[in-house]
């Protein structure tokens, strides 16, 4: 929409006699213009003209999701390319003294889905800075804590079951 004021005389280059140029004047015109767009969204010609009215909403939303997913995929591809370039970067650093080797490429894909909490990320970062012995001890403690928590949860469930039985 341009910046003209409602009630002002339309400029010669702006609106035509029956609305702005390219603006549909009837619903038929608007629907005919929209039809190819919805075919691009994945609807068939038949679905568009003869299907239930609300069908277009689902296709429109699905297309938005598809675009979002494609965008994320493109971003992911870029991230892998960047990672690969960074891994190979040492090879392009010329040195007469030192033998240069490429860093290994990622041994597994990036983790998708649930993201780690800030605390988990912080702890993982700490482990990276630890010596091998410290890291082993940390991992052992983590396993111990996990096992203890699982045991506690199990006990709580058993206690609940017992009280349920006693209540009956």
């Amino acid at each position, binding site marked *: 929409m341009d910046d003209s004021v409602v009630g002002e005389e339309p400029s010669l280059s702006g609106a035509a006699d029956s609305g702005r140029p390219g603006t549909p004047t009837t*619903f038929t015109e*608007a*629907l005919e213009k929209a039809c190819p767009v919805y075919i691009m969204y994945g609807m068939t010609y038949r679905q568009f003209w003869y299907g*239930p*009215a*609300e069908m*277009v909403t689902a296709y429109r939303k699905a297309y938005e999701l598809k675009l979002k997913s494609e965008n994320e995929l493109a971003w992911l591809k870029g991230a892998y390319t960047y990672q690969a370039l960074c891994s190979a970067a040492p090879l392009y650093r010329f040195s007469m003294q030192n033998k240069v080797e490429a860093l290994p490429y990622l041994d597994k894909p990036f983790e998708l889905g649930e993201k780690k909490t800030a605390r988990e990320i912080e702890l993982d970062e700490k482990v990276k800075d630890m010596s091998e012995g410290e890291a082993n001890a940390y991992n052992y403690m983590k396993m111990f804590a996990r096992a203890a928590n699982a045991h506690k949860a199990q006990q709580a469930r058993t206690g609940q079951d017992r009280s349920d039985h006693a209540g009956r």
Partner: protein
Amino acid sequence: MSKVISFNYGGKDYKLEYNRDAIRAIEREGFSFSEQFGKKPFTETEILFRNAFLMHHSGIKSSTVNEIFNAFPRKTELIEALYTMALETANSIFEEPAEGKNLNWTIQ
């Protein structure tokens, strides 16, 4: 979900609903959504009512449509409902503004 008017006439179930093809047919017959509704009440009503059969009962005879129309009680309410249904179908292609970007409005 688009609105549907359901009824039984002569032992047969009918559903009145509009699809985009019906909107095209309505305008092809000279009905204008941009003009004030009720200018030509008889013609407008007839066009709206007849084309509401297009989606589910496209082969129905005009005489049957007229008989059904005559049998309908609360006609004003019916026509208002049909007009709203047609308008909703026509507007279905236009996107609703995203949440947070829409404004509140009231009729006073």
